[in-house]
C-alpha cells in the first residue's frame, strides 16, 4: 500500500517563462510545475508523465499552451493555466528535448510532424530522421528563424538542417587550437530574426556563425569572456542581446552586433544551466545547478528566486531535523547548511558556516561543511568544515553554534581549529536534556568529549580524551538517556559512562569493521545495534552484554526512529536498495520493501509528524509517528507515504485546482464573496426553504465562471440576467415581507434572522438598510393622514 513519493524539487533542467511573464514553468521529475513570477509561489503541477520530463516548450501558436516531452516517449500538450492535458503524442522513443529522441546508445534527431487532430491521443507516425549523430545534451539543438532550419552540434561539428531543402550543412572545428583550448560545442541557440547561430564552447568562447548556407563562405566571429565551458545561450526575443551563462554563475548579456559590449549579473548562486527569456522580453529566468530558478528583469535586476532543495555536488552531512523548526538540514549552497521545510516543501534559509567567499571555478579545493549535528533541544549546532580531502594537507575546523532566541538563528560560539590531529570521522551530541555534551571521533585514534565550560564560561572546551589500543574509531552513539556512550574501534565496541568516563565494557563480535552503531529507543533501549563491513547486522543486549541476534544483511544505512522503537535499515544488494524496518527486540522485520531504488542509500532521517496517523494496517503502522526520508546517490530525496495520505493529498490538490481556476480579480472578489455567502446560506438555513430561490442565481454565476470567455454571449445580454440573479434573494424577501405586513412582531423576528444570514456582505447591508427605510416608508404610507385633510378642509 505504501508508495514512494519523490519530494518536490524545484528547478530541474529547464524553465520557461509564459507569455505575459506571469508564470514560470519548469520540468521537475515527472511533473511540470507552474510558479507565479510575482509571488514566487507554486501554483500547481501538470501531472501525467510517467517518467522524467526532459523538455518543455511553449506552443508558439497558442500562448496558453505548453508542450512537454518526457523519457516515457510522449509529447503532451497542456493548458498550463488550468492544468488540463489537451493532447498526447506518442513518439515511441525517449524524448530528450522536443523533437529530439534517443536510442539507448546513439542519439538521433527526429523531426516529428505534429499532426493536427482533435483526438486526445495521437500517435505520431510521420517522422523523418534528420540526423543519427547528435549530442545527448539537449542544449546542443536549436531551431532557427521561423523554424526554417534546425542547428545541432555534436562534439566538434555543427550541422544545420534546412527543412525546405532537406539538406544538411556541416561545419567542423579543430579539436584544439594552438593554445590548447577545447573547441567542442556545448550549446547552441539561433537568432530569432537573423540567420545567425550562436554556439558556446568548452573553453568559454562564444562563436556567432553566419552565412552558413555556403559550405565554404561561412564565417564566424568569436567572443570570449567565460573561463569555463559555456553552459547555455539564449537570444532575447527581439534579438538585440545574447545571454550566456556557465559555471561562473554570472549572467552575461552581450549586445548583438556590437562586438564586445557586455553587461554582467554576478553571484547568482550555482552554475547557470539554462536561460530562457519571456516572449515579450520583460523577464529572463535562469535555472541553476543548485536547484534554483532566478527571475531577472530586463534591466538586469533580480526580482525573484525560486529555491528548491539546494542540490550540491554531494551531501557530506547527515540528513538532520532541526528540533525547533522541524526543518530538514543538510548541505546547501557551498559552505552553507540549508534549512528546508518538508511540510511546506520550501527552502527556508541558508546558514553560512564557512563564512568565506566561494569561487565558482572548476578544480578549486575550497572549504566544505563535512559534518553537522544538532543537540536534542536544538539550541546547539556543531559543524565540521574541511578542505583538502583529496590532497594530503587537510585543514578542518570544528565550530559550535548557539541558537539565539532574539535573532532566531544560530550564532557562532566557538571555533576549534585543532580539535584533532586528523580528520573527524563522526560526532554526536548527548541526548539528555540536562547536560549538553559533544563527542567527536577522529582518524587519529581518539575520541574527545566537549562541554560548555564550567562556571558560566560561554565557550566550549575539551572535557575528556579517550582511546582504545590505538585503534581507529569508526562510529559513536549515545544511548537514549545519555547514560551510555558506545564508541566502536574497528571490530570492538566500547561502552563508556559519560558521567565518570570509565570504560564499562567491550563488546566483541564476529570479524568485520563496525560501520554503523545505534541504541534502541523506548522499550528497546537495552539493545545496541551495529553493522559491519562483512555484511552483518548485530544486536547486543546491554544487560547481559551478549549478542542477542545477528543476521547477514549488507546494510548501508541504519536509522533509528526517535519517537518509536523502529529502526530502518537500507541494504544494497545486486544494484538495488531494499528497506527493512524492524524492532531491535526481534530479528523479524516489521516491514520490507524490496527494490526501493536502484542507487545506494547513505542518508536517511525520520521526520516526526505534526499529527499522528491512525493506520491500522500493520505494515504501515511504523509510519504513524514519523515519516522516513532518504537521499539516493542521484541526490533525489524520497519518502514513504501511505495510501490514505496520498488520497488526502490528491483530494486537497483537486480542491485547490478548482479554487484556483478563477483568477483573483476585483470581479472575482465580488462574485466570490457572493458565492461564499450563498454557500453559507446553504449550510445555515434549511435547504428546503432555500431551494426555490437558489438555483437561478447560482446557475447563472456558475455559467459565468465556468464557460470559457470566448463562447459567452455579449456582456450586454448577460448583464440583465446577471443583475437579476443577484436580485433574486431580494425579491424573495420582498415576498416574505408582503406576508409580514399582517403581523409586525413576526416581521421583527424575521429581520433578525435575515441579519444573521447576511452578515458580512456590504451589498446586502445596503439593501437591508434600504429595506428598513422602505418599511418605514410603508408604515408612513399605511398611516391614515385623513385627519390632516380634514384639518385643511376645515381651515378655510
Amino acid at each position, binding site marked *: 500500500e505504501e508508495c514512494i513519493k519523490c519530494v518536490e524539487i524545484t528547478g530541474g533542467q529547464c524553465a520557461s517563462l509564459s507569455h505575459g511573464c506571469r508564470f514560470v514553468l519548469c520540468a521537475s521529475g515527472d511533473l511540470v510545475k507552474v510558479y507565479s513570477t510575482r509571488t514566487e509561489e507554486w501554483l500547481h503541477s501538470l501531472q501525467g508523465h510517467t517518467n522524467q520530463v526532459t523538455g518543455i516548450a511553449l506552443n508558439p501558436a497558442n500562448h496558453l499552451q505548453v508542450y512537454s516531452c518526457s523519457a516515457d516517449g510522449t509529447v503532451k500538450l497542456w493548458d498550463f493555466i488550468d492544468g488540463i492535458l489537451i493532447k498526447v503524442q506518442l513518439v515511441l522513443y525517449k524524448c530528450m528535448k522536443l523533437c529530439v529522441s534517443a536510442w539507448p546508445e546513439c542519439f538521433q534527431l527526429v523531426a516529428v510532424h505534429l499532426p493536427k487532430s482533435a483526438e486526445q491521443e495521437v500517435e505520431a507516425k510521420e517522422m523523418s530522421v534528420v540526423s543519427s549523430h547528435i549530442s545527448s545534451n539537449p542544449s546542443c539543438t536549436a531551431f532557427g528563424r521561423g523554424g526554417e532550419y534546425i542547428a545541432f552540434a555534436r562534439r566538434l561539428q555543427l550541422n544545420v538542417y534546412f527543412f525546405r531543402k532537406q539538406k544538411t550543412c556541416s561545419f567542423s572545428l579543430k579539436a584544439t587550437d594552438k593554445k590548447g583550448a577545447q573547441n567542442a560545442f556545448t550549446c547552441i541557440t539561433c537568432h530569432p530574426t537573423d540567420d545567425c547561430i550562436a554556439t558556446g564552447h568548452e573553453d568559454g568562447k562564444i562563436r556567432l556563425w*553566419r*552565412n552558413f548556407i555556403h559550405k565554404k563562405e561561412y564565417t*564566424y566571429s568569436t567572443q570570449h569572456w567565460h573561463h569555463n565551458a559555456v553552459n547555455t545561450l539564449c537570444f532575447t526575443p527581439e534579438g538585440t542581446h545574447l545571454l550566456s551563462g556557465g559555471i561562473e554563475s554570472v549572467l552575461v548579456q552581450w549586445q548583438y552586433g556590437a562586438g564586445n559590449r557586455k553587461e554582467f549579473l554576478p553571484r547568482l548562486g550555482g552554475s547557470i544551466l539554462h536561460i530562457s527569456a519571456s516572449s515579450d522580453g520583460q523577464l529572463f529566468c535562469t535555472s541553476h545547478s543548485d536547484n534554483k530558478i532566478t527571475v531577472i528583469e530586463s534591466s538586469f535586476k533580480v526580482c525573484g528566486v525560486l529555491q528548491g532543495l539546494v542540490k550540491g555536488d554531494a551531501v557530506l552531512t547527515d540528513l538532520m531535523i532541526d528540533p525547533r523548526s522541524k526543518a530538514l538540514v543538510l548541505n546547501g549552497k557551498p559552505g552553507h547548511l540549508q534549512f528546508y521545510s518538508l511540510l511546506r516543501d520550501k527552502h527556508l534559509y541558508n546558514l553560512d558556516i564557512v563564512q568565506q567567499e566561494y569561487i565558482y571555478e572548476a578544480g578549486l579545493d575550497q572549504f566544505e561543511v563535512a559534518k553537522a549535528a544538532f543537540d536534542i533541544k536544538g539550541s546547539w549546532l556543531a559543524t565540521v568544515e574541511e578542505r583538502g580531502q583529496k590532497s594530503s594537507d587537510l585543514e578542518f575546523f570544528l565550530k559550535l553554534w548557539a541558537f539565539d532566541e532574539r535573532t532566531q538563528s544560530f550564532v557562532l560560539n566557538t571555533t576549534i581549529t585543532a580539535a584533532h590531529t586528523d580528520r573527524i570521522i563522526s560526532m554526536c551530541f548527548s541526548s539528555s536534556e540536562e547536560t549538553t555534551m559533544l563527542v567527536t571521533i577522529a582518524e587519529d585514534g581518539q575520541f574527545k568529549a566537549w562541554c560548555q565550560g564550567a562556571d558560566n564560561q560561554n565557550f566550549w572546551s575539551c572535557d575528556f580524551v579517550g582511546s582504545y589500543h590505538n585503534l581507529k574509531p569508526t562510529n559513536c552513539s549515545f544511548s537514549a538517556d545519555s547514560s551510555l556512550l558506545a564508541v566502536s574501534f574497528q571490530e570492538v565496541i566500547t561502552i563508556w559512562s559519560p558521567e565518570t568516563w570509565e570504560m564499562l565494557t567491550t563488546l566483541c563480535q564476529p570479524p568485520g569493521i563496525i560501520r554503523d552503531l545505534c541504541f534502541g529507543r523506548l522499550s528497546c533501549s537495552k539493545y545496541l545495534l551495529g553493522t559491519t563491513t562483512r555484511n552483518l547486522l548485530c544486536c547486543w543486549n546491554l544487560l547481559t552484554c551478549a549478542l542477542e541476534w545477528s543476521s547477514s544483511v549488507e546494510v548501508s544505512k541504519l536509522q533509528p526512529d526517535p519517537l518509536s522503537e523502529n529502526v530502518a535499515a537500507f541494504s544494497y544488494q545486486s544494484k538495488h536498495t531494499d528497506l527493512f524496518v524492524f524492532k531491535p527486540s526481534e530479528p523479524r522485520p516489521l516491514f520490507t520493501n524490496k527494490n526501493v531504488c536502484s542507487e545506494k542509500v547513505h542518508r536517511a532521517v525520520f521526520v516526526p509528524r505534526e499529527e499522528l496517523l491512525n493506520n491500522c494496517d500493520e505494515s504501515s503502522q511504523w509510519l504513524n509517528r514519523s515519516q522516513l526520508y532518504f537521499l539516493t546517490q542521484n541526490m533525489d530525496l524520497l519518502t514513504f507515504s501511505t495510501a490514505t495520505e496520498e488520497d488526502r493529498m490528491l483530494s486537497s490538490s483537486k480542491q485547490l485546482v478548482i479554487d484556483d481556476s478563477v483568477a483573483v480579480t476585483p470581479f472575482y472578489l465580488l462574485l466570490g464573496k457572493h458565492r461564499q455567502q450563498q454557500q453559507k446560506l446553504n449550510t445555515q438555513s434549511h435547504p428546503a426553504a432555500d431551494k426555490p430561490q437558489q438555483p437561478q442565481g447560482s446557475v447563472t454565476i456558475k455559467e459565468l465562471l465556468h464557460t470559457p470567455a470566448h463562447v459567452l454571449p455579449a456582456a450586454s445580454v448577460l448583464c440583465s440576467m446577471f443583475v437579476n440573479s443577484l436580485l433574486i434573494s431580494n425579491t424573495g424577501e420582498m415576498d416574505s415581507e408582503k406576508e409580514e405586513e399582517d403581523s409586525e412582531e413576526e416581521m421583527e423576528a424575521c429581520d433578525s434572522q435575515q441579519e444573521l444570514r447576511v452578515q458580512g456582505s456590504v451589498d446586502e447591508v445596503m439593501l437591508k438598510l434600504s429595506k428598513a427605510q422602505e418599511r418605514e416608508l410603508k408604515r408612513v404610507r399605511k398611516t391614515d393622514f385623513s385627519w390632516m385633510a380634514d384639518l385643511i378642509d376645515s381651515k378655510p
Partner: protein
Amino acid sequence: MGEFKVHRVRFFDYMPSGIRALAFNGDTERMAVARMDGSVEIFHCSDRFFQEKIIPGREQCGIEGLSWVGERLFSAGLNGGITEYDLTNQKVKYTIDAYKIPWYTFLVGCEDGTVKLFEVNEDKIQFERNLDRQKSRIVSLSWHTSGSKIAAGMMDMIQIFNVETGHSIHRMLADRGVGTSRSKECVVWSVVYLSDGTIVSGDSVGMVKLWDDQTGTLIKSHNVTKCDVLALSVSQNEDSLVAGTSEGTVVQFQFVSMVLGKDDKEWVRTRTFKNHTHDIRAVAEITTAVVSGGMDAQLVVKPLLDKIEVRSAASALRKIHFPHRRLVFCARNSGLMLFQYPGHLELWRLGESEGKGSSLFVKRNPEKLLHLKVKGEDHIRCSAVSPCGEWIVYSTASSLRLYRLHYQRFLFLFFQISKLPKVLSSANQLCFSSDSSHLFSASTQSSVHIVSLSQSGCKFVGTLKPKSGSHQAIHLLAASEDGEWLASANSDHEVHIYNLQTRKAHCTVPVYSSAVTAMGIHPTTNCLFMMYADQQMCEYSIEQKQYTDWSRTVQRKGLHRLWMERDTPCLNVMFNPQNPSHVILHDTYMLCIIDQSLPLPDDKTQFYNQLTLKSLTEDQRKSHSHAFKVCKTFKDILCVELISDQSLVVVERPLEDVATQLPAPIKQKKFAT
C-alpha cells in the same frame, strides 16, 4: 653527413624597419611595401611572396602612402614630395614637391588642410588644382569608384568633397572617446569609400564607423579596440573589410546577408587575427589573404580559408621577417665578414677556437675592424667583399665606392679607390671573381660590367649583355670557381650564363615560372645549381647547355611534401669541396645538405630522418638514408657561408633580440595577470 666547424655569429645587429604602407596591385599580383626607413619592396603574391625588388630608401624620407596607378608605383612622404619609382631599374624615377607634408598619392591631402589634385601623365604627374581648403590637417583620403567624390579623414571629422566643384558636400563628426580621452581630438586614421556610397572610417577612439554619403549620417559603429584603428582595407569585390589596430589585431568585417537568401546585407564583425605584437600600420586584403604589416617589422600573410580552393603550402600563414636578399658577405679565404646595414657597413674578423667537442672554447673573440658610413643620404643597395678580403665595394642609388684593405700583422690600411671607370656609377648587384681579380657589377638593362682589379687600381674590361634584351634589373650574380663562367638572374626569371674568356653570352637557362632565389656554380663540374621561390631546385650543366640527369630525376620524381611546404626561400647555395656530390643550402629556419649520390625521398619516406638513422645499424642506414639531410639546430638564419678551412659561418639574428629592440607595445590587460 660531414662534420663542420661552425662559427655561430650573433653580432649582426640587423634591425628590420617597421612597415608603414601597403599597396596591392591586383593585375600584376604585386604587393608594394613601404618601410619606415623609406625603402620600398615589391613582393610577388602568387610566387610565395618572394621579395622581387628592393628600392632602398634615403635618410629622412618617411613614406606615408603608396599607390599603384596601372603598373606605376607612387609614394608620398613626409618630406613633401610625391615620388614615382622606376621598377625595372629599382630606383626612384623622380620626385615632385607637393608643398608641405602631403599624405596620399596623386590626390594629395596636405597637412595644411588642402586636398591637391594631380593628373597622372604618361611620364610625369602634374598638379591640377586644390579642393576647398580646410582648417585641420588631412590624415586620410579615399576616392569613390566613380571618381566624382572624395572622402577625407581629418581631425574629429570626415568630409566628402565633390571633385568637379572642389566643394565639400558633407561634414561628418566623429565622436571623441569618453572619460579622459574626451579632451583628445579624434583622429580619423583611415577612410574607405565603398562603391555603394558607404564610407568606412577607422579612428583613434577605436571605432570602425560606417557612414552614408547621401545623408551624411552614421549607419553603424563597431567598437573594435580600446586604442587606435590605424588602417583599413577593403577587398576588391567589397564584401570584406579588414581593420588593423594598434593592439596588433586585424579585425575582419564581412558584408553578410542577415537573412539567408535575401539581399539586405549588413557589415558584421567576424574574425579577429592576432599575429602582431605592435601597432599595425597597414593592412591590405588581397584575393586569398589578408596582408598586414606594422611596427614590429614583419609582414604577415594570413590566408582566408574560405577563399582558398586547395589548401597547400602556398596558401599557408606566412610571416616575413627578413629580406630575401643577402646582407652578409664572407671573405672566404681570410675569415672576414661584411655586414650590410641600411646606412653603413661593418667588417668583422671571425674569432678562433680550440678544443674538440660539440661546443668549442673561444680563443680569440671576433673583432670589429671597420665601420664604414655611407656618404650622402641614400641607403646602400648592395655591397660585396672579395674572397681574399682585400676589396670592399658598395653601391647606393647614386654612387658606387670601392675600397682596398691592406693589413699586415699590426697595421691596418684602408683606402678608397678614387678613379673608377665611368660605367661604375651605380650597381644593382655586385660580385667578385673567386680569385678576387675581377669585380662584376650588374647594371641597367640586365648588363654586367667587368672591372679588373690590381694593386694599382681598377680597369674597365668590358660589358656582358644578354641576348634577350630584357630591361629588368639583375638581383643575383654567381661566378664560377675557375673564373670561366658568370651567371646572372634578373626579375624576369631569366638566368643568363656568360663565358668570361670570350666575354659573350654563352647560353640561357630555360625560363621557369618562379623566381630564382639562390644559385651557385659547382667548382668541379661547372653545373649551375638554382633554387626557386616555389622550393624547386634545378641543376644545369653549363658545358652541355642542358639540365643534368640528377635535375631531371628530381623533376620527374618530385620533391618531398615537407620540403615543398617550407615557407622561406633558400638564400645561398654552396658546395662542399671535400665531397663534390654535397650541395649545401639554407633558408631562415634550417641548413640542408643534399647528397646527390643518394636516392631521393618520396612522400612515404620519413623526411627528417636523422634521429631514426642514429638508432639503426650501419647496414640498415644505407637503405633508409636519402639525399636530404636537414639540420635545424640554428634558427632565424640570415646567412650561412662555407669558408676555406672547412668551417661554416652561420649568422643568426634571433627574433627575440629583434623584439627587445622594438619600441614598447601598447600595454594590455590580460586575463589572469
